[in-house]
């Protein structure tokens, strides 16, 4: 009898709690934004920083009353799908988004996944924001992909030119993981360096994605004694090990990459050996980060226990989607309206100090506005944190 009473009481409590929660969430209608990317396996860090950036920002918006688009205030819900870096899974993820009636998706994180989901996205009226660089994704007749970051063929030449002019760099060596993204970034880098008049002394050394010890891989590259070693498309997991091995093999030159990195990971994995390492960041340094960026970092840290510097570049996609929808509320269900708005859209960049703007660019690279205008901030790592080397504009 007592047990039955206890069970009834527990059931009542659970029911009331569930109703209470639903009632609290149901105050605003929900706007679902999707994420399809890699959150497991060796490349998990790429997608998790995306997903957590979106979740941290959505929680912040919901906590402060929701996001107003037109006359309606929405709670933001992030619907995530782990594609495991597998194009087949990425397609399944995008189909899931279509089934849920989602029209705006961040991801996928890699080239083949982004290419694979294109037919699904275009046939189901989904705009998606990949972190993948192939130009064909963004050039007409492709219509629904928007590059979510600065591409290596945009940042690479800027970095090489800066280093040629300021550091007297004349020779360069490239090393890349043996998979599509890093290899295409390496090829783009070799092309850009050659066009600038640099001598490419080593351009075909690659390593397995799961390599953990880079000394044997780097030994032949180090024999070429380049002024600059470019780690093409390097993941944050591999960057410290590559830097450490290169320095231990006696390399004295500069080391750079065109991907975003995390200062904490570099500090732990390479320590002082990472000093001088050049990478691409977002509004990451104290002089660039606005109070809103600082609050985002704090909220992300509170929510997940630790911030990831990669999120400096990944905080933008959700903001772009919401701000563009705010500019034309009919775009919530009509991506054609979204695409039309992209051509003229402009809003203040809330994450950077100064008068930086959120707007869509890409005319020079793609012939249409299919890239978010995030600042090209080139950082240099020094004693545990990033310092701004220079800032440039894309397009």
């Amino acid at each position, binding site marked *: 009898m007592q047990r039955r009473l206890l069970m009834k009481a527990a059931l009542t409590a659970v029911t009331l709690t569930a109703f209470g929660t639903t009632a609290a969430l149901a105050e605003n209608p929900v706007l679902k934004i999707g994420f399809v990317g890699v959150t497991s396996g060796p490349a998990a860090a790429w997608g998790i920083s995306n997903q957590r950036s979106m979740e941290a920002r959505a929680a912040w918006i919901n906590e402060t009353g929701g996001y107003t688009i037109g006359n309606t205030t929405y709670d933001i819900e992030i619907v995530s799908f782990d594609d495991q870096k597998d194009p087949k899974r990425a397609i399944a993820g995008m189909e899931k988004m279509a089934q849920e009636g989602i029209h705006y998706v961040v991801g996928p994180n890699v080239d083949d996944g982004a290419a694979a989901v294109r037919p699904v996205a275009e046939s189901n009226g989904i705009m998606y924001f990949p972190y993948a660089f192939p130009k064909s994704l963004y050039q007409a007749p492709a219509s629904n992909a928007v590059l979510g970051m600065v591409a290596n063929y945009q940042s690479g030449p800027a970095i090489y030119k800066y280093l040629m002019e300021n550091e007297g760099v004349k020779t360069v060596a490239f090393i890349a993981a043996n998979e599509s993204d890093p290899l295409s970034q390496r090829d783009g880098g070799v092309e850009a360096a050659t066009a600038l008049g640099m001598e490419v002394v080593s351009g*075909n050394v690659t390593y397995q994605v799961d390599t953990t010890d880079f000394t044997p891989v780097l030994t032949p590259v180090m024999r070429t004694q380049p002024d600059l070693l470019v780690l093409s498309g390097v993941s944050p*997991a591999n960057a410290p090990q590559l830097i450490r091995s290169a320095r231990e093999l006696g390399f004295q030159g500069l080391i750079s990459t065109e991907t975003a990195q995390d200062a904490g990971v570099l500090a732990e994995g390479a320590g002082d050996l990472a000093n001088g390492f050049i990478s691409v960041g977002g509004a990451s340094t104290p002089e660039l980060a606005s109070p809103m960026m600082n609050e985002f970092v704090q909220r992300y840290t509170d929510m997940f226990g630790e911030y990831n510097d990669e999120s400096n570049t990944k905080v933008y996609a959700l903001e772009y989607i919401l701000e563009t929808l705010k500019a034309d509320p009919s775009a919530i269900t009509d991506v054609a309206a979204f695409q039309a708005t992209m051509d003229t859209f402009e809003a203040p960049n809330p994450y950077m100090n100064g008068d930086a703007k959120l707007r869509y660019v890409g005319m020079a690279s793609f012939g249409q506005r299919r890239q978010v205008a995030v600042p090209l901030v080139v950082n240099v790592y020094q004693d545990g944190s990033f310092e701004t080397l220079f800032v440039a504009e894309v397009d």
Partner: protein
Amino acid sequence: MEQILANGVYLGSQYAMIALGLTLIFALMNVLNFAHGQMYVIGGFVTYTFYGQWGVPFVLALVMSCVTLAILGALIERFLFAPVIKGSAREESTMLLAAGIAFFLDAMILLVFGEKQRGVPKIVDGVFNYDFRLIMPYDRILICVLAILSIVAFIGLMQYTKTGRALRALAQDRTAAQLMGVNVDRYSMIGFALGAMLAGLVGGLLVTITGVNLGMGGPTSIKAFMMVMIGGAGVISGAIWGGIILGFMEAIGLAVLYQYGDITYLLIFVSLMIFLAIRPQGLMGKPWG
């Protein structure tokens, strides 16, 4: 040439250690432990937490990795593998269970340790440089020596202790061992714990060189399986030879074939396929299992 030899010895010793635990578990229980790589990763993270985060001396942190993984291995054997082996005669049941454990451990690692690459301070500073013909950081030399000593200690344990003899008897013939009075359940658990402990030990050792991250488990398991297949599944000396051979193939391939891109592993896989077609039981395995 000196550099290739040094890289081969270094890679071979660490690979041999990774393969040892896997082949031990296979020999004792006929279980392909797909979660071996995840156990290696947990070993790395435990050492990272104790040594890198809390400042505990490295040796103590390494012991903590071994103890943690031994306990984890014992629990997994007692509460997961043992009931499944008793309840199902089909080998794929244990394979599916091992795969499930691997996914579960991956998820747990993400929850507990996060998605980032982690690293610890170097245990020894400095680089040995012989006229730029042989360059090897001192910490790698130390880890290589420790790995070789651990392998020797493991062989000693298996050859000269009562536990080792019981484990070898179990590996040779489970029924005969039971008839001779070996407590099969107890030694199965000890063997699984020992295999997991070896994964933890090598994870703890290598975190000082390679760091550790969530995604290392799967690729580590695949590499360990390759070494075991080369040497012969379930044969301790085979795992050691498999590791050494793979280490040298990798070191030679990376040094000689670099100008052709990353074809080293392509050639290794092709060689492995041809080798297994000719000798499916591996170098030291027996054709009858």
